[in-house]
């Protein structure tokens, strides 16, 4: 696979823009706060990485507004105009966008509607249809909804569409607005940590959730473009049916998806310069991920340098594929692979540690791993020239 990465855009808990995100990353600045979007009885003490208040106009739908900002940045970065994406595909990855349904419900309640309608929205795909309609996009419109791997899979699907000529260019958007519904769900699974995200750390005990919108514009190398250094070189997805809410600690299926992505990129494990791990800070995810890396790369000391981004921006669920891809590419452009915010002490049962200080990024192949609910595992390979 050789798909040009034409542009990137981001809205995260650091606000709008890749620059703001990189500033936060280089300052190792935590960006979580108490959840402000909806009063939750059991939210006290749990922080989330949320859009800064006032980022969007009053009454704006956070999904649409965040997409608008991230797309604007990605187009500018790509040196494209809106008219240039008319014939593109729009591929959205999201875990479900129930926050829109929550707003409708609360508005009906405020108006005194006797029985406000729960889930009064037209399905997860509605946002993509609406956004495509607003942009006048005439290419294929698809929403991928596979929980935490949604927008990583959206990148993979976009790559395949361009590879086979179904579209010349694709706008991929990962959108997560973190509804109260989801926050409560994670609380019920005892997966949220009151201490924040500590990827691969000996004391890790859960995830810190986040909102984000990441946009990645991908295109065929047949299209004319100003010089661009980054490409999607391969990727793979495999569902592990071991356990719906947890991972198979032996790491075999996770290793299979990593190996399969390496194969699709036409390289060998030794070609991987560094890894952006999924690193949620949950006990099982990080153990499984470490086991998988050890299986693929052979020995502990052959595992390439790896880092995690969720200490900075939280686990943004359906958006994490696109936002972490955009953030990681931003870091590579700035010449560095960032340290793992939240990591302090090596877990002896894991035996390997993520980066504790930034290292220089050179040209080469980079791996981005995403492991999700429902056993959904995705690995992407980017090439930086």
């Amino acid at each position, binding site marked *: 696979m050789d798909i040009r990465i034409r542009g990137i855009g981001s809205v995260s808990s650091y606000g709008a823009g890749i620059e703001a995100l990189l500033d936060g990353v280089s300052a190792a600045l935590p960006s979580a706060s108490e959840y402000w979007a909806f009063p939750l009885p059991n939210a006290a003490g749990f922080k989330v990485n949320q859009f800064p208040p006032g980022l969007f106009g009053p009454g704006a739908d956070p999904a649409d507004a965040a997409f608008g900002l991230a797309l604007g940045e990605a187009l500018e970065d790509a040196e494209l105009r809106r008219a240039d994406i008319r014939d593109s595909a729009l591929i959205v990855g999201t875990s479900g966008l129930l926050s829109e349904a929550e707003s409708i419900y609360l508005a009906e309640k405020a108006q005194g509607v006797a029985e406000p309608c729960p889930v009064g929205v037209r399905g997860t795909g509605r946002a993509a249809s609406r956004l495509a309609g607003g942009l006048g996009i005439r290419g294929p419109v698809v929403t991928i909804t596979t929980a935490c791997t949604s927008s990583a899979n959206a990148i993979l699907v976009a790559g395949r569409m361009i590879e086979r000529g179904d579209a010349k260019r694709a706008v991929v958007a990962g959108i997560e607005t973190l509804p109260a519904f989801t926050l409560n769900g994670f609380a019920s*699974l005892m997966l949220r940590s009151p201490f924040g995200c500590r990827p691969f750390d000996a004391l890790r*005990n859960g995830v810190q959730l986040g909102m984000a919108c990441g946009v990645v514009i991908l295109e065929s190398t047949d299209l004319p473009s100003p010089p661009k250094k980054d490409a999607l070189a391969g990727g793979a997805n495999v569902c592990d049916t071991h356990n719906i809410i947890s991972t198979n600690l032996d790491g075999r299926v996770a290793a299979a998806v990593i190996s399969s992505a390496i194969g699709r990129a036409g390289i060998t494990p030794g070609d991987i310069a560094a890894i952006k791990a999924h690193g949620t800070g949950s006990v099982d995810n990080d153990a499984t991920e470490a086991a998988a890396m050890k299986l693929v790369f052979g020995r502990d000391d052959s595992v390439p340098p790896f880092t995690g981004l969720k200490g900075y921006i939280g686990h943004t669920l359906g958006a994490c594929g696109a936002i972490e891809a955009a953030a990681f590419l931003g870091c590579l452009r700035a010449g560095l692979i960032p340290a793992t915010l939240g990591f302090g002490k090596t877990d002896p049962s894991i035996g390997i540690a993520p980066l504790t200080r930034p290292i220089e990024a050179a040209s080469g192949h980079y791996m981005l791993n995403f492991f999700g609910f429902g056993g959904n595992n995705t690995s992407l390979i980017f090439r930086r020239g």
Partner: protein
Amino acid sequence: MYGAADATLKLELKTLIIETCRKKAVPDAVPDDAPLIGPGSALGLDSLDVLELSVVLKKRYGIRITDSKDAMRVMGSITQLAASIASGASRT
């Protein structure tokens, strides 16, 4: 007296677990001291069952379980669970 109350609580717990987890088992046939979790155990419960039971047990008995490892330990066996409830366990 304590013994009779203990037996009543244990039977109540067995029924509650079977109903909550929609297991096909007779409450009386569930042993007091055998493990409940994992393949081959008395009820073959898994981690998701343990989470569901944590919510139900909190509602019914007010016992607070906030950590999944703690939940696994509290639900080690019927005897263990009954003891946790009797002592008003609220380890957080």
